């Protein structure tokens, strides 16, 4: 959308105004996330830039909130919890979701749209409602305030993403490949692991990443189901914001932003690999 050489003054003005507007919107999107990074190095216990920080005085910056984060057992415990719960529920969600996606993509699947609707419902139902329902039901069967309860709940919330991404990958899947494999004498298991799996792997991994981030970032269900022992990072941040607002939260937030950048990069690489494997993009 470059400016054509014959553009008049009106068009030129509009062209630059439009770009300026877009720049403002992009700033709106990115500024809050970038602002917390320098703030987390603040030596004072405030959420604001001190005059020392604005003068780039090295004494105004410190790592004390990061030290605080590492030395606080509540936080380190919550980190352990977050990873345990997220990894366990990701594995469960990926296995269950991939199998179901394979079934849903078969041409003979009965009641496909109904099934699809039910299976992805955890993604559509507002979290507060899922959390309320699970709270009653899981307390009745003794699963509230247990790791198992939260892992199961997070698995349910994560599976729709796996189902959707893997089904989407299977849409572009050439079924003659699995027929060829069967024709050459492979049994269904071998066909799955040697032919289908390598091709749908990008979809499976990105589904797994979605499931992971869903669990890792989830706080509403944790608020209702978790006891003190099962507190995750977002749960800890929640009480941090509500009770004693300290820049430790900003330090944690900065670390989480770094993690999301890593996730974003992984997904982008996967997307490129997937396109290359299916021959959708040259190079």
């Amino acid at each position, binding site marked *: 959308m470059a400016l054509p050489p014959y553009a008049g003054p009106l068009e030129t003005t509009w062209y630059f105004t439009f770009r300026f507007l877009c720049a403002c919107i992009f700033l709106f999107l990115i500024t*809050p*996330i970038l*602002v917390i990074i320098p703030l987390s190095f603040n030596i004072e216990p*405030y959420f604001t830039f001190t005059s020392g920080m604005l003068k780039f005085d090295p004494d105004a910056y410190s790592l004390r909130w990061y030290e605080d984060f590492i030395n606080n057992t509540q936080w380190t415990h919550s980190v352990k919890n977050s990873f345990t719960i997220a990894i366990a529920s990701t594995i469960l969600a990926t296995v269950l979701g991939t199998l179901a996606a394979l079934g*849903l993509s*078969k041409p003979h699947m009965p009641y496909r749209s109904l099934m699809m*609707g039910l299976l992805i419902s955890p993604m559509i139902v507002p979290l507060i409602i899922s959390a309320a329902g699970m709270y009653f039901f899981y307390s009745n069967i003794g699963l509230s305030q247990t790791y198992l309860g939260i892992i199961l709940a997070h698995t349910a919330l994560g*599976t729709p993403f796996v189902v959707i991404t893997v089904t989407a990958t299977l849409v572009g899947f050439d079924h003659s490949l699995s027929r060829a494999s069967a024709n050459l004498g492979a049994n269904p298991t071998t066909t799955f692991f040697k032919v289908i799996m390598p091709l749908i792997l990008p979809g499976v991994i990105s589904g797994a990443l979605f499931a992971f981030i869903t669990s890792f*970032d989830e706080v509403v269900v944790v608020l209702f189901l978790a006891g003190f022992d099962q507190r995750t990072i977002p749960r800890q941040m929640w009480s941090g914001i509500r009770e004693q607002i300290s820049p430790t939260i900003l330090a944690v937030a900065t670390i989480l932003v770094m993690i999301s950048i890593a996730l974003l990069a992984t997904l982008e690489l996967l997307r490129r690999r997937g396109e290359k494997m299916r021959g959708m993009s040259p190079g």
Partner: protein
Amino acid sequence: MANGNTQGEVVLAADGTPLKESLNKAMRKNRIRALMLVAPLFIFILFSFLIPILDMTFRSVDNWQVGTLMPNTSMALKDWDGKAIPEEPVFEALIADLKAGAITREIGKVGTRLNYEKSGMRSMITSSARKSKKVKEGPYKPIVLKMHKKWKDLETWTVIKRNTSAYTIGYYLNAVDLKINKSGEIVSQPENRQIYGKLFLRTFAISMAITIICIILAYPISYLLATMPLRYSNLLMIFVLLPFWTSLLVRTTAWIAMLQSQGVLNDLFVFFGFIDDANRLQLIYNLTGTIIAMTHILLPFMVLPLYSVMKTIPPTYMRAALSLGANPFVAFVRVYMPQTLSGIGAGSILVFILSIGYYITPALVGGTGGTLISNQIAYHMQSSLNWGLAGALGALLLGSVLALYTLYNKIVGIDNMKLG
């Protein structure tokens, strides 16, 4: 199809069975195989998710308390015509129930339940239960009438009788600001007690506002991203995707740092002299805070579908319109915009669905003026413990989300939902 060519003749498969039958058999096998693959997840979702949700909706009509904990009174009230205070047998049954309930300490649940219908009933029930321990022999009617003045009130008895049935629509009535009056008619609550109708309306209004702001902000940047050369737009896409992938709580925290009265934005305003240091703007813990933070959080959900639709529009259409003499504005409105309507529709419904169910951000930055219906559900779940009402509010919210989702499915189709 096969019958058309071979009338009267049965086509046989290689093993001698009729082709139709053997084909059906193979189809059935395939169908079962597909079902077997889906079954584990289906069973899992059924037990971990669908049944809990149904259980919650059931709570919104469940009305076990009076029938179970006051069985004698419920029986005795069965034939009561509701025209005058009941006679002695009912009071005898009542004393028996109160005594039993006072021993098991369960009678408070009846009091709490009846209190939702009419305030003051809890103290009436609990104090009468306490006094009932001393009652030795009848006639019971005068004794009970002396226990609490509300027993002389005909409405007390109508409320009790109404709640002896195992199911109630009381919670739903309450959730839409209605109640049953003395003569058993459904009327609206007095003005000062109409909370939920307003809250539902406010939730819809806020969600609508957020959706509209999202369209206004997302349209230009999606257009820019879709019309730029790919290598630049991929870079700019990071500005949309990084917020999308950043933790919700991180973004909410970030907005607290930005918007609070000693925050970055207010500091900037004071620095540039827009406002005095003394009267900094209150941008957070109110409606403004909720709308700003939620718009930021939901904007990527609008940009991504819009971008993918705009990406498919060939630029030649606009050029054709321009070369046929339309001025750029008219060409844009009449040629380009209609083609992006499906993207706007998809993004809007997505953003709207997400925002009417939002809980975390309004709870943290909304203060009292910026809370939504989900916050009220959480309040009844955790603080007031009125679970029936929480269930009824939840079921109403769920109903509206499902209706919107059906619409979304019609417009976009869930198979076409793009992630990331």
